């Protein structure tokens, strides 16, 4: 980096170049500082807690060795791995088929299926669990269909499959959205079967996304405690153990140690992602023709059946949750009422919690999408500052593997430290926003990165040769091209902020309590009807905002994405 900057410059530095350097280097340094404060320092605080052997905290090296060698830990780790691998193995193929159906076939009603598939994203992870209890619990509607009640391994797997499905789908949809029609034309003119074309064109272009989706689902599952806490029964997993260690036993050290174990999958996926990246070429060159699928009765019929089946399951689960929130006293009095929506008299903070969640979601979505997309652009599309870029990439991969609970505790340890000038933010909405952006950074960034990687580097080269400043290129070319992905990020951050609970539970103050925290509190206290009601409210809000954004995205597509359509005259 230093070499770059001290290179003798033959001619006077133009204003555009100076502006570019400010944009690139300044942007990267600023983003690094923000990530340092919002991700690294809280995490270091966790490590400090994990390795400090303060009495009764369950931390320290001796405690770590004891933990790692205990049979109970092996059992928990085995459970976590079994659940997470099962969920990933189920979700990724399903999401791939679903994404393929939406992007590469001619099935009718794509907008509806896409909307329905995003449902699980719009409610706290407790909601699928709550719905499963009403469906397959001992008093469940469909209890007769299962030999055992739902509590345990299959309950967690089912709940997590539903919860993580849209997360995987987002990545795969983005990866499958762009394809070069010329390749498919060439394949078919050479007599290749569709299967052959898939193997040699589609699969190589998307396998990195498949891997990314697999890693994301795996880490989301291994770090989630919302589903296990509702339907896990006595089948326990590591994330729940961290939650219990902290909440029940006040052993912050032990929670921090388990949190560190849960970091490993992220480090692993970072390594493999970096390795895959080196082998991956640009999928979309500047001269690409947008691929349009040809109609095929059989193919479309099959995919429609798959899509319908998945959507039916999702509708059943979410319909059940909404229905149960309206039932007076399950299962003895099935008359409908809005009693569960009277939040003033129940635990959690009532309507204040809901209003706070709205504020949090708005701020997170706006600030987060601007920061994350710009950060991703700087990392992907600018040369130089290799060390800085690598540090940014490492840092931005970390949050995915940090259980929200651990991140939240890290925030408590760091921001509530004596002598930390940032303490003024403690308990404020600002800190909740920062924590939420940090928590959901990785997925949003992966969406941005996937979209950006599909743009040929030729675009930047063209801008450079036209002597257009990079930031202008970024604002006038990159942002409009990636607008659909950008709006996806806004939507993702909004709904994630609406639904987050795990980090926030340690960060809220009386005036900043959140709706999803209220859901967990109500479910924990056994007020399942109230929890279902608040979840449903979150669901409706998120869905409403998503519809609004989808509508905006359609308008934007029409205005600035004409290049995606086929050539004129067709």
């Amino acid at each position, binding site marked *: 980096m230093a070499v770059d900057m001290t290179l003798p410059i033959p001619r006077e530095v133009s204003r555009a170049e100076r502006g570019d350097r400010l944009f690139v280097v300044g942007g990267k340094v600023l983003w690094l500082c923000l990530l340092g404060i919002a991700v690294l320092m809280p995490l270091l605080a966790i490590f400090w807690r994990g390795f400090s052997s303060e009495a009764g905290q369950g931390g320290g090296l001796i405690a770590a060795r004891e933990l790692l060698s205990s049979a109970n830990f092996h059992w928990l780790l085995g459970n976590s791995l079994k659940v997470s691998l099962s969920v990933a193995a189920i979700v990724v193929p399903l999401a791939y088929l679903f994404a393929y159906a939406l992007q590469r076939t001619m099935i009718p009603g794509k907008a509806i299926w896409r909307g329905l598939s995003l449902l699980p994203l719009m409610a706290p992870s407790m909601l699928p669990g709550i719905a499963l209890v009403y469906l397959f619990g001992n008093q469940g509607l469909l209890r007769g269909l299962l030999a055992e009640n739902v509590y345990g391994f299959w309950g967690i797997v089912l709940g997590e499959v539903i919860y993580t499905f849209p997360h995987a789908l987002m990545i795969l949809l983005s990866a499958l959205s762009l394809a070069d029609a010329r390749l498919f034309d060439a394949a078919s003119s050479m007599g290749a079967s569709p299967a052959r074309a898939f193997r040699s064109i589609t699969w190589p272009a998307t396998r990195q996304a498949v891997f990314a989706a697999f890693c994301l689902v795996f880490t989301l599952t291994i770090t989630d405690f919302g589903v296990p806490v509702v339907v896990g029964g006595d089948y326990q997993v590591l994330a729940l153990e961290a939650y219990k260690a902290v909440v*029940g036993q006040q052993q912050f050290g032990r929670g921090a140690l388990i949190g560190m174990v849960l970091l490993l999958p992220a480090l692993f996926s970072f390594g493999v992602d970096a390795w895959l990246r080196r082998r991956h070429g640009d999928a979309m060159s500047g001269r690409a023709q947008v691929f349009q699928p040809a109609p095929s009765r059989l193919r479309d019929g099959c995919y429609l059946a798959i899509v319908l089946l998945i959507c039916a399951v999702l509708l059943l689960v979410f319909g059940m949750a909404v229905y149960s929130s309206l039932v007076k006293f399950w299962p003895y009095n099935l008359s409908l009422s809005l009693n569960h929506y009277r939040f003033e008299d129940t635990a959690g903070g009532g309507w204040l919690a809901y209003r706070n969640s709205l504020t949090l979601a708005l701020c997170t979505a706006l600030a987060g999408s601007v920061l994350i997309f710009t950060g991703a652009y700087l990392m992907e599309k600018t040369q130089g500052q290799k060390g800085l870029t690598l540090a940014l990439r490492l840092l931005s991969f970390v949050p995915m593997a940090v259980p929200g609970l651990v991140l939240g505790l890290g925030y408590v340890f760091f921001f509530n430290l004596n002598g930390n000038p940032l303490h003024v933010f403690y308990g404020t909405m600002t800190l909740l926003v920062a924590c939420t952006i940090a928590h959901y950074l990785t997925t949003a960034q992966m969406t941005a990165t996937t979209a950006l990687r599909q743009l040929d580097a030729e675009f930047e080269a063209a801008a450079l040769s036209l002597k257009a400043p990079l930031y202008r290129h970024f604002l006038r070319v990159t942002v409009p091209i990636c607008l659909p992905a950008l709006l996806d990020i806004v939507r993702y951050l909004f709904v994630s902020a609406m639904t987050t609970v795990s980090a926030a539970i340690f960060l809220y103050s009386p005036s900043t309590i959140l709706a999803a925290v209220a859901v967990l509190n109500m479910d924990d206290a056994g007020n399942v009807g109230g929890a279902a009601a608040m979840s449903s409210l979150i669901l409706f809000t998120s869905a409403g905002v998503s519809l609004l954004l989808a509508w905006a995205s359609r308008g934007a597509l029409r205005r600035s994405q004409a290049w995606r359509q086929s050539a004129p005259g067709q």
Partner: protein
Amino acid sequence: MFKPLALVVAVLSAFSLNAFAKTELTVYTALEAEQLKTYKKAFEQANPDVEIKWVRDSTGIITAKLLAEKDRPQADVVWGLAASSLAILDQQGMLDNYAPKDLDKIGKNYRDAANPPAWVGMDVWAATLCFNTVEAEKQGLTKPVSWQDLTKPEYKGKIVMPNPASSGTGFLDVSAWLQTFGEKQGWQYMDDLHQNIGQYVHSGSKPCKLAASGEFPIGISFEYPAVQLKRQGAPLDIILPKEGLGWEIEATAVIKGTAHAEAAKKLADFSASPAAMELYKDNFAVLAQPGIAKPQTELPADYEQRLIKNDFAWASKHRDSILAEWRKRYDGKSEKVAGQ
């Protein structure tokens, strides 16, 4: 144009003056949510210059939160938290010993022994069985009358209890069994009970709510949710096992170093006052001030006599080792099945 603006400014400044005049008191609590409104209103009526801001959560979370904030406490005062939790905070030097005005009226078992005390009791909550009569009939279950009954094979998979590692109510049960049965028989009893547990949950009131909805017919819980749910029409029998009930004190304490010490002490005064006891008595059958409680129709008249002789010092001292042993034995119910 100008006049309405001036009016707005005047109104706003009046509001802000009003807001400045009131002390905002951050109160951490594990009280049931439906109790908060009444308690807050009563306190603010008696102390119009103070405004309560609640932070409510379950016992475990509130205690964990207080400990996490040890270096820089956010709470001014704690109103309604398990005395065993407050004892832990006291050991960490986080409480400000204070003798409220009506301390002499508080029963000596219901306050910290130090003088002035670190915490002062409000009321008592105790172990209760919630038994769903509809499901019992459906599944042909006989009504248990003792803790020992719960180990009968007919209840296999039918019982829910709170995990003592996360729930104050769960710990109170375990500590009571160890004290009444003796340590060896106590663990033997829990081994047998473990065979019948359908699920361990993380809150003390949830087992009763699960029993009320028939999800699991028997819940090991405490009396407050049992009484409330029965009043709401849930098909519950409230059973007080004949060996005696484990119990815990709900208490109040001032946080050391609070910026609003005066207001915090006003709240501590109020919490121990006869006026507050009048509020508690609607929810609890045993109060820290003797002679005020009224019998609850859902509970027997000799309720207080059914509480065991509880050695809090012993329980607090051995909390860590008891929980470690409990976790070793029962955490991860399917552990043995999994072959570990």
